C-alpha cells in the first residue's frame, strides 16, 4: 500500500506557533471532532448535564420558547407540549443515538466484515451465494418491514437494533469483499498458503489486517445512515419505545404544533443534522486519508 505523501515535512522549520496551529487545524476535521466530542460527553454524563428530568414536565410550563426567542434561562431550548425541558431531553436522547450507533456498527460491521472476507477469499459458489444475499438485502424495503414488525410485535430497542444491523451489514460485506479480491492476489498470501497455513489462519493473520482501513471508513460513513434510519423509524413510531426521549420521536411529537411552537420539532432536528454532518465530513476525511481509491462517492 502506498502511503499518501503530505508534502515536505516542515515541522522542524521555524514557524511561529500561530501559523503552526493554523496548519494543524486545517489538516484535521476540527468541527466534526468538536461536535462529536460534545455529543459523546453529553451521552456519557447525561444525568449530570441535564438540568431537568427528561420525562417529567410541568404542564404549567408548556411551549416556552428557547431563551433567544423570548424564553427563560431555566429552559434554554424551550419546553415541549408536556412542559418537558427540550435541552434535557436532547442530552438524554444523545445516549440513545450514540448507543444505537455503537452497537449496530459493532455487530453489523463484524458480521459484514466476516462475510466479506469469507466471500472474497473463498470465491466460487460461496461468494455467489453471499453476494446474492447482499443484493436481496438491498432490495428489501426495510422501513416497511420495520413497520410491519413494530405493528405485530410492538416497538422495542432489541427489534430496532436488529433492524439497523440488518440495514448496514451489506455495505461492509460488499466493500470488504472488493478489497479482499485484491489482497488475495498478493505474494504474501501465496507465500502463506504455500507454507501450509490454513485458510482460517490466512484470513485472520494476512487478510483481515488489510481490510481494517476500509472497515473504518465504511463504518464512519455508515454512522450517518444509522442515525438517520433510527430517527426516521422513531419518527414513524417504530423505533425506540416512546418512554425514551429519541430525537426522531421528539421531532414527531412537535409536528402538530409547528404553527405555534416550531422549536419543539425543529431544535431536535438540527441536532440530528449536526451529528450526521459531523460524521459524514469525518468519514470523507478518513476516506481520503486511509484509502484514496475509495474517493469516488459510493452509491
Amino acid at each position, binding site marked *: 500500500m502506498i502511503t499518501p505523501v503530505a508534502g515536505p515535512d516542515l515541522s522542524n522549520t521555524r514557524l511561529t506557533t500561530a501559523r503552526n496551529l493554523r496548519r494543524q487545524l486545517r489538516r484535521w476535521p476540527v468541527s466534526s471532532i468538536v461536535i462529536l466530542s460534545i455529543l459523546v460527553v453529553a451521552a456519557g454524563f447525561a444525568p449530570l448535564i441535564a438540568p431537568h428530568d427528561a420525562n417529567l414536565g410541568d404542564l404549567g410550563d408548556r411551549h416556552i420558547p428557547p431563551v433567544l426567542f423570548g424564553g427563560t434561562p431555566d429552559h434554554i431550548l424551550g419546553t415541549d407540549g408536556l412542559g418537558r425541558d427540550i435541552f434535557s431531553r436532547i442530552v438524554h436522547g444523545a445516549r440513545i443515538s450514540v448507543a444505537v450507533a455503537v452497537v449496530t456498527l459493532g455487530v453489523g460491521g463484524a458480521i459484514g466484515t466476516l462475510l466479506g472476507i469469507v466471500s472474497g477469499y473463498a470465491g466460487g459458489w460461496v461468494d455467489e451465494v453471499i453476494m*446474492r444475499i447482499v*443484493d*436481496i438485502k438491498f*432490495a*428489501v*424495503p426495510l*422501513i*416497511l*418491514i420495520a*413497520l*410491519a*414488525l*413494530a*405493528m*405485530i*410485535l410492538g416497538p422495542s430497542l432489541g427489534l430496532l437494533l436488529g433492524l439497523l444491523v440488518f440495514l448496514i451489514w451489506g455495505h461492509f460485506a460488499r466493500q470488504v469483499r472488493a478489497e479482499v479480491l485484491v489482497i488475495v492476489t498478493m505474494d504474501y498470501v501465496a507465500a502463506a498458503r504455500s507454507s501450509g497455513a490454513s485458510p482460517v489462519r490466512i484470513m485472520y493473520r494476512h487478510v483481515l489486517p488489510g481490510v481494517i482501513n476500509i472497515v473504518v471508513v465504511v463504518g464512519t460513513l455508515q454512522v*450517518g445512515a444509522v442515525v*438517520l434510519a433510527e*430517527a*426516521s423509524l422513531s*419518527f*414513524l*413510531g*417504530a423505533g425506540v419505545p416512546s418512554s425514551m426521549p429519541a430525537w*426522531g420521536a421528539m*421531532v*414527531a411529537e412537535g*409536528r402538530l404544533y*409547528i*404553527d405555534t411552537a*416550531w422549536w419543539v*420539532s*425543529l431544535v431536535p*432536528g*438540527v441536532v*440530528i*443534522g*449536526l451529528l*450526521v*454532518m459531523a460524521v*459524514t*465530513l469525518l468519514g470523507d476525511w478518513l476516506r481520503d486519508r486511509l484509502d484514496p481509491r475509495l*474517493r*469516488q*462517492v459510493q*452509491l
Partner: protein
Amino acid sequence: MPKFKVRFLVRRVIAGIVTLLVVTVLVFGLSRIQGDPRSLLISEDASLEQWDELGRQLGLDQPAYRQYLLYMARLVRGDLGDSTLQRRPVADILWSRIPNSALLAGAAFAFAILVGVPLGVLSAVKRGSFWDRGVRSFAVLGQAMPVFWVALLLIYIFAVGLEWLPASRNTGWTSVILPAITLGWFGASGQVRILRSSMLDVLDSEYVRLARAKGASGRAVIWKHAFRNALFGPITFAALTLASLVTGSIVVETVFAWPGLGLLAVQAVSNSDYPILQGVILLTTFIFVFASLLVDVLYMAIDPRVRIR
C-alpha cells in the same frame, strides 16, 4: 444480441425473481410469527363463520409449505386479500394510490435532476471556488438533514409563515411542490456528489486535455467531451434514485399527508391493517427489482465494457 449479453440478462432476471420470492416468504412468515395469522388478516368484529372460512382458505390445517403454496397461488392471480378496515380488495386500494405516488416521485425526480446535474457540473468545473463550496454545502446538508425535518422546516416557512403553499394533503397542483422539493433535495444531493467526482475524473483525462489542446471552446469541452463521458455513474444513480423515491417517500408522505403508497402503509400500521401493509411491501419490492433490471439494461446499452458483474 451477443450471447454473453443474453446470459447476463437471464441471470439478472432470475436474481430478480429470487428476490421477489424471498420477500414473499418474508411477508408470509411475518404474518405467522405469532401463530394464527387470522388475528392480523380479519377485522375484529368478524363472525365465527368468517373466521373458520378464512382458516379453510388459508389452509391452516395443512403443513406450512402447503399454506405458502396456497398463498402464492392467490398472489400470482393478483389476489392480495381484503383490507381488514375498508373491506375492499387490497389490489384496488393500491391501484388507487399509485397515481399520487407516481406524481410525487416524478416531480421529486425532476427536481433532483434539474437541480442536481447543473450544480454537479458547476461544482466540478469551478473546483475550489466559492460556487464549489456553496454547492457542496447544499449537498452535505441535503444528505445530513433528516427528510422529515426538512419537510417541517419548509412547512413552517412556506405554509405557516408566508402562506404561499398548502401544508398538507393533495388539494391541487400546488400541493406537490413542497413534498417534491423535500424529497428531491435528498436525491439532488447524491446526484451532485457523484456527478462532481465523476466529472473531476473525466476532466483530468487525456482526451479532455487533447480536446483543449486542439482548441475546442470551453463549453464544447465541458458538455461534449467531459459531461457525456462522466454520465455513466450518474445515470445508474438516477435510476436507483427513482426507485428509492417510490419506496422512500414514506416519511415525506406522512408529514405532508400526501395520499400515496407510503402514507397508506403508515396508516395501515395504525389501523392494524396487515393485508394492506404486505401489499405495499410486495409492490415496492417489485418496483425496486424492476428498476434495478432497467439499470442493468441501460448499463449494457451505454457501456460496451459491461459483461458480467
